């Protein structure tokens, strides 16, 4: 069926749409035994009208029909190593490197070197673990933000927040990215060292039942000099990223030395 070129131009917004012809109805039109009257037709989703289309859709999903989007090639490149200081992982494909980078060197906390899957979780971590002002404010108001994207609830304690996560959002009780701080109070140098010691090893398996110790591929970060406190956090500069914004990644936070 050939499309008249004028139609395209018209619907694309070309001016000069003609005045509609005058409407003039005769009352005899559509009267018995005739019954035509113009009407808008709406079909509910389960209507038979959509059967053919639905069948096409599902044939497409099941790969019976040709997929219209071609997947991009995965180029392989000569082996190279990760350039982040202390990391010596080697890769043969850019995609593998991309994932490694985001997982390990992405949203990294500069205080304790933990990596997180998203900026939101990193921000929450920094506030709750490394910000002394947060601790002071938390004594008087609800500061612990819900971790679920889109939920704006705040809580007095991290325990209350955990309960909210479990009851309201059906999160697992041992959700890996919601570990409470072990030492209470403002971040002290001693605490920082303890926290750093925790970063070695671990792969996030919950403490109950599994004694799984795994060597971290992360080199042990240098201990913070006593007395020094940083009041800001470094992020990986946004110039180093694959995609939009700053890179993201994570590392679990389970203590390595805890005995089960």
């Amino acid at each position: 069926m050939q499309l008249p070129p004028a139609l395209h131009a018209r619907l694309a917004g070309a001016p000069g749409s003609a005045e509609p012809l005058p409407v003039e109805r005769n009352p005899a039109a559509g009267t018995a035994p005739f019954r035509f009257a113009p009407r808008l037709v709406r079909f509910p989703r389960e209507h038979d009208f959509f059967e053919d289309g639905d069948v096409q859709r599902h044939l497409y999903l099941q790969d019976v029909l040709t997929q219209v989007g071609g997947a991009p090639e995965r180029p392989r490149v000569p082996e190279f190593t990760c350039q982040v200081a202390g990391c010596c992982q080697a890769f043969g494909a850019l995609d593998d490197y991309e994932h490694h980078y985001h997982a390990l060197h992405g949203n990294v906390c500069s205080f304790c070197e933990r990596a997180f899957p998203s900026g939101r979780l990193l921000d929450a971590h920094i506030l709750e673990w490394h910000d002394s002002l947060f601790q002071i404010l938390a004594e008087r108001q609800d500061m612990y933000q819900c971790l679920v994207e889109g939920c704006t609830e705040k809580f007095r304690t991290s325990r209350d927040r955990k309960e909210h996560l479990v009851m309201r959002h059906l999160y697992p009780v041992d959700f890996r990215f919601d570990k409470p701080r072990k030492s209470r109070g403002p971040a002290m140098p001693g605490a920082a060292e303890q926290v750093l010691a925790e970063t070695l090893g671990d792969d996030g398996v919950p403490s109950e039942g599994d004694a799984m110790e795994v060597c971290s591929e992360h080199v042990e970060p240098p201990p913070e000099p006593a007395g020094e406190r940083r009041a800001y956090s470094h992020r990986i500069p946004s110039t180093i990223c694959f995609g939009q914004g700053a890179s993201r990644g994570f590392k679990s936070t389970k203590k390595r030395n805890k005995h089960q």
Partner: protein
Amino acid sequence: MWSRERGRLKPLRCGVEELRCRRREREAALRKARREQQLVSKRLLRDEALEEAEEGCVAVIFGEAEIQQFLRLAQRGTEEKEREGALVSLRRGLQRPETQQTFIRLEGSIRTLVGLLTSNRALLQLEAARCLHELSHSEQSAVVEACLPATSYLLTYLSGHSSDFIELCLYTLGNLIVESEAVRRQLLPQGIVPALAACIQSPHLTVLEALGYALSQLLQAKEAPEKIIPSVLGSTLPQHMLQLLQPGPKLNLGVAVEFAWCLHYIICSQVNNALLITQGALSTLGLLLLDLAGAVQRTEDAGLELFLLQKQPSLLPEGLWLLNNLTANSPSFCTSLLSLDLIEPLLHLLSVSNVVSVLVLTVLCNVAEKGPAYCQRLWPGPLLSSLLDTLAFSDTEVVGQSLELLQLLFLYQPGAAQAFLQQSGLQALQRHEEVAQLQDRVHALQQIALHG
């Protein structure tokens, strides 16, 4: 027939006839499933190029002991390659339903898998995610629902930036979503809608297509109109969807197909279409349709079979349905139809099928009922001979609609009845004189034609 693979097309190893037969069987099964409201399809993302690199052989069925061994190696192996290798073997084994069953029944297996999914080893994460993906694709509910402990993490990772990994998470989520209402009852409070809304801003096409798939599965759910569509409409998802459907050089068909289906499920649920209209849905979709139709004319690529109007009979009814709703109450649309010379092309469609013919005649009635000024523009021309042809049909609905149109023409267009008589119209009417649904109208028309 081609099967999709990452970056390559590879012919399937069967004859064409066998493929056609298989397709017919699949179609019949899908129609039956639809009638029983059991229409469920999942997507499987398997990187066949990757499998070939692994010197693929048919996946063997693993028993408990073997699975435990793989898991132990993956968790505690000393060599990086050894750990990955173990998980890869497990993942390939999980292609078999028997192995899947054994896996989920093994105590601690899912827990361990989730642990690997959330570990700090990027490649283990990826393989663990692939294992979950295989499980999510299962036809056994128990296997699919065993993946539930992983969902909060799958959602968390959607705000990451590793596009391959996110794509995998999305397809897995899409498969889980469509499995049962129980799964959705967990995913909704876990924040799947905001997570998708955040993720749709990704620049990666593979991620977008996967997201569209997952969202379409969510919107297709039975309880979607009450429980899901309102929150989707309240999010930023609709405006991003429409953006991804804008015609132009940036339009990606794979992505567009997914979001077009998303919009279909939203719109025919009738929850709040006014909102979509204010966001420009009508103009976006209208322009897209035109763009695609134009592309169809220019291309011979079989890959666009979804959009070849002539070859996909299912598209004609829908296009004509659209025309009906446009012309029913709108003098301007009817005028446009006339001034853009679309009547003759419409008449050509009258021989396609009964459903299509009824729709074409309905659209023509929409135009004719607006009065003499409109009928004048329908006359003379091929309309009369087309109508005489449709009167030769045996389908009562087609004939009935032709009779309605004739009444309008006789009423509003002087000379129409005369011309009708001269072209043996009465004889054409005669064969329907005894048909119950038609006889009153046939007689009425005979009277009008003879006596004015």
